[in-house]
């Protein structure tokens, strides 16, 4: 029983990573139909940037987090004004969605290169925000930083779900992805939604990086791996439902942990992804892709 409960705790902690990034990817995809492949790199900037500000420049923890999140938000804003604005608002019909997709891929590479210059190639971690011994709840142990990561996944997924489901602004954000012309004739400023949700997801990813880096440690190459984990959860949420992406992310994390705990550590990922691809092939409706029709 203890082993099972500890696997559940470990699964929730790793599943939170899938969930947060699935949520970040889906909310922006919902607004502009493009995957942001740089979202993992924003997390890397959160973890490494905060660590370097504290360890190299001696900035206090609280200020380091504030400065880092502000910097990430500013970077996202500048990228939107200099690149996305021209791609979406000025020449989208000429460039197409595929080109814009590669802009975020290019941003990912640029962030990685810039981070290598600024932070070096060392493994680093921001200090944990909640230190102390592992919590013992019911019959399992869970590290305190992992609790924060799970909480962030649940809070962000719930907040995004509530925003889309219950607010006029959330409906308008969805409309931008459904029909750009339809949104414009209703007076909805699609550029504003694209910009602010891009910035919000960048800052959310960076906050995740601050919380996650004490658990696994980050290098400048951590970003793309995290982005890919998010794509899996986002895909199973139909690329449009951030709340569902968090739930799916947590379930994938649980399945991963249980397979590795009870079936095979070395082949756990192969079995898990085989099962996931089987679902995609034989029950594509679970992806919710009909919503894109």
């Amino acid at each position: 029983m203890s082993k099972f409960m500890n696997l559940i705790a470990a699964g929730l902690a790793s599943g939170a990573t899938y969930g947060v990034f699935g949520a970040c990817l889906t909310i922006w995809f919902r607004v502009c139909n493009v995957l942001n492949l740089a979202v993992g790199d924003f997390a890397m900037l959160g973890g490494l940037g905060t660590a370097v500000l504290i360890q190299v420049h001696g900035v206090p923890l609280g200020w380091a987090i504030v400065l880092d999140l502000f910097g990430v938000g500013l970077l996202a804003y500048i990228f939107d004004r200099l690149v996305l604005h021209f791609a979406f608002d000025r020449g989208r019909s000429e460039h197409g969605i595929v080109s814009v997709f590669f802009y975020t891929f290019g941003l990912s590479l640029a962030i990685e290169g810039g981070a290598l210059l600024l932070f070096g190639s060392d493994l680093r971690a921001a200090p944990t925000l909640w230190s102390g011994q592992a919590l013992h709840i019911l019959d399992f142990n869970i590290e305190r930083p992992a609790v924060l990561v799970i909480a962030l996944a649940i809070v962000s997924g719930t907040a995004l779900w509530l925003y889309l489901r219950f607010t006029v602004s959330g409906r308008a954000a969805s409309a931008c992805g459904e029909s750009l012309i339809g949104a414009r004739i209703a007076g909805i400023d699609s550029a504003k939604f694209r910009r602010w949700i891009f910035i919000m997801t960048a800052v959310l990813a960076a906050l995740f990086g601050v919380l996650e880096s004490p658990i696994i440690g980050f290098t400048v190459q951590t970003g793309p791996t995290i982005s890919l984990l998010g794509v899996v959860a986002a895909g199973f949420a139909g690329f449009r439902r951030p709340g569902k992406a968090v739930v799916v992310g947590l379930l994938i994390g649980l399945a991963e942990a249980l397979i590795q705990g009870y079936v095979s550590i070395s082949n756990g990922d192969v079995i898990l992804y085989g099962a996931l691809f089987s679902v995609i092939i034989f029950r594509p409706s679970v992806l919710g892709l009909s919503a894109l029709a």
Partner: protein
Amino acid sequence: MSLTSGALEVENVAVHYGKFIAVSSASFSLAPGDFVAIIGPNGHGKSSLVNSLAGLVQRSGEVRIDGVPLPSRNPKAAVAAGLVLVPERRHLYPGLSVRDNILLGSYVKTSRFFAEKAWEDVADVLEVFPELSELLNQRAATLSGGQQQMVALARAMAARPAIIMLDEPCLGLAEAVSKRVYEWLVMMAATKVTILLVEENPVHALEVADRALEMFKGVMSVPDMATFAKEQQP
């Protein structure tokens, strides 16, 4: 209804796409409550004209609503001033419900935060389109062409417009459905909203409109109705 009364003045409006001139000169005015059709063959600038008035494309020239100038390429300003477009091919939000499609027509005017409260403010459009009451939770993509056109009209009415511009509202619809669309337009006209109807088929348009304007090779003119009627006879 809108705070504006629905007088529209268009003066020397021109629309260019690079070197291509879609509208070289258009001037006309509508009084509040007018129902005017813009007729003319496809590709002669009718859609470009109404798209430019709605702020979707850049234009030159002067546009005034109740005497107040309307900025170019600013759809939000157009909707806020009471000028609303029902575009060709409708451009609904296919993955959203009928309720959300209608609700978002009021996006510029509503100050509500929660969608449910905002819906209460626009639900009265169902009095004009009662058939939509049973379809509110259905996704727009699953509706028939006629039902989608009804949603597009209801979305426009939810904006509390003073002036509605309709671009080819019967395009792609069966004859029987087109007749229904024209019945809805007559019902909307009864609410005293000013209507500018773009229609390639002059026979249909002149059945419901008070008068007509013609666009030909990007130039607007007033057609000679006597000659026009003779040309349309079988």
